[in-house]
């Protein structure tokens, strides 16, 4: 269990699930969750590559991951705020309903 492919498989699985959620779900919260999944799959990639392909003394991948986690937290906060406002304005979180700008 100590090779790179296993981690890459896991991360691509997570990414695929995330993208599937983003494409198929109508619920804004579910879409946001899909995005979080994709971000985390990227984190796994960073850690795995750092672990298997470079000097162990270097922690570049880890640093990236921590940054992404911080970003993801901020993003989630902003996105949830938008979703709450959306719900307040149109009474639903279904993204297809939010079509006022469509010509």
């Amino acid at each position, binding site marked *: 269990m100590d090779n790179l492919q296993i981690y890459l498989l896991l991360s691509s699985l997570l990414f695929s699930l995330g993208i599937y959620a983003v*494409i198929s779900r109508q619920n804004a919260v579910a879409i946001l969750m899909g995005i979080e999944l994709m971000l985390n799959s990227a984190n796994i990639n960073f850690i795995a590559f750092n672990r298997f392909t470079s000097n162990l003394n270097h922690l570049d991948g880890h640093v990236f991951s921590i940054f992404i986690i911080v970003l993801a937290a901020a993003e989630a906060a902003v996105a949830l705020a938008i979703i709450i406002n959306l719900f307040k304005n149109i009474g639903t979180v279904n*993204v297809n309903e939010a*079509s006022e700008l469509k*010509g």
Partner: protein
Amino acid sequence: MDFNIILALSFLYIPIGLFVYQLFFGHILKHNTWYVSIVGIGINLAVALNFFYRVFLNQPDDLIVSGRFNWLTTGNFNLDLGISIDNMGAITLLVVSLVSCLVHLYSSEYMRGDSRFSRYYAFLGLFTFSMNGIVLADSITMIYIFWELVGLSSYLIIGFWFEKKSAAMASKKAFLVNRVGDIGMFIGIMMIYYVGDTHSFNLSDIIEKVKSTEIDSTYLTIAGILLFMGAVGKSAQLPLHIWLPDAMEGPTPASAMIHAATMVAAGVYMTLRIFPILTFEALTAIAFIGASTALFAAIIAITQNDIKKVLAYSTVSQLGYMVLAIGVGSYLAAFFHLVTHAMFKACLFLASGSVIHSMHDSLHKLHDHDTDPQDMRNMGGIKNKMPITYYAMLITTLAIAGVPFFSGFVSKDAILAGALAYYFEHGGITIFLPIAGFGAAAITAFYMFRLIILTFHGKPKNDKIYENLHESPSFMTIPLIILSALSFAVFFTGSVNPLSDGSHGWFAKAIGNGHNYVIEVESHDSHHGNSHNDYEGNHSEETHHHEKTYSSHNVSHDKTEHSNYHFTEHVSHAAHAAHYTAMYLSLLVAGLGILLSFTVYYFKKLNADKIYSFFNIFRLYDLSKNKFYIDEIYSNIIYKPFMFWSVISSKIDWDYYDQKFIDSIGKLTIFASDKSGKVDYDWLDQKVVDGFGNFANYMSLKMKKLQGGVVQTYILGGLVTLIIIILIIQQI
């Protein structure tokens, strides 16, 4: 700038300023606008008197004023403009200014009430400007420029009453006939430019060059005759004299100035200016032209009934005299006659204008519009009504007829003496010159007294007209008095016979000393034997036949000897002998003419009609009456064939070339453009260009559906595309 040059230039800028003023602002002062003009011309007259005074005091012929500047340069071609006044120029300036000033004064009454009064004064200003330009010019090109300008002002003045068809026609005729001469003159100028590589139009340069270089005499003769052609046109010599009698359609005072005293004399003046470059052959041709003109015009003048026509032909005849004098080499006599003629002929014209003015008023009062106010047959006996006019005209008639103590006698006598001396020297065919001269003198005396007697003596032809006649106002009579006074010989010479003795007469002194030379074709081996110079004037000390090279003109002696041309100054004994013969002969012929005139018209001893019918056996009377049919001949030989060919050409041009050929090209073009327009619109525009538009429209309708507005569809599309790109990259 030299103050003298500024003074001299005033002869140009004052009249042209008056022209502009009268043309644009003349209407402001109404009738009083003429005061502006006369003040301007009066200043000119004062300056001219100043110049003349210097000539009078300081007899040697040196330039009073001279100055020139470079006008334009192209490559190595230079055109200078400049002025120079020598004694001859100063005297001519005085004549022009005096006549111009008097005519300005006279016209204020003569033209009173004319609807284009200010324009008349504008034209007078323009004329004075151009005439002064000719006199001042120091180069032949500048003469030519002003030459054309006097032609223009003459055209404007003749056609001043252009509502009259005859006046409009006469102005066109004058202009076109003058063109014929001017073309010759222009070619002459071009030829002179290349004489001996002078490459200068300056008169003194050309004369210097001609004197100091060997030049083909045939070339110089042709150039000289061509230059003289300009004078033939302007001075109304045969065969281009036909415009001058018609020019009498213009206002009479302007006729007096332009067509009697100054402009027509410009031709003579120009020929005098180029005199030193004229060859013997050219001068011979000039002499014959002048002599035949003098005789010919005098014969026509006998039978004319229009008072102005008589004077017009008389002018042509007197100009012929001047040209004859130039031709026989009597430089001084020609210029002398120019000056005296300007005085008495201007006076004659102004006096006839005074008569016409009075007749016109009288006819106007009678509401008679059919009687011709200029026809002498309607006059008669008006001496008592118009005494001042009568005496002025009588004095000037005596002058022109050549009666002693009047100016015309001395000047005409000098010319006749020259012609006679010329015959004595050369013999043969040249006997025509004195015969024509004396014949014309006799005829002149005859027709001038015929004019006086028919107009002023005898019984009035129509009492009603006679009753209404009146003497002209003083502004019209003052010029008559001044000019007739100047027709006395004492103003020009202390002696009756001024040219025989250098000690008498300021005129001979001022003019005679400078230019008495003619280019001789000296024959080392050619057949032109003796020289022909016959300056009878003022060579009291140089009584011997001698040749004088002009060493003062820096011609080396060596050069002169080898040159074909050199300049001789002859005093021939023949001229002196001829002088007294000429004087007695001219007295005789003038007396005969006057006597005959009195017999026929005053005492009526001879019936004029019978004499006419006697001459008419040979159709002589008809010939003279109809001016030798010259106009008809020109009409038939030149005008009608020209018009005929013009009509034919215009028919070919319009009916065939224009209507058929040019128009068919147009029609073809319309047809072709119709077709190509169809192709352009139906195919290119409708199909191809619109096709692109339609295709874009169709495609965008299809593509529009992709823009669903659902973000997830876009993401899916992006994902699929990414996968495809990755697959493609892997394949590569």
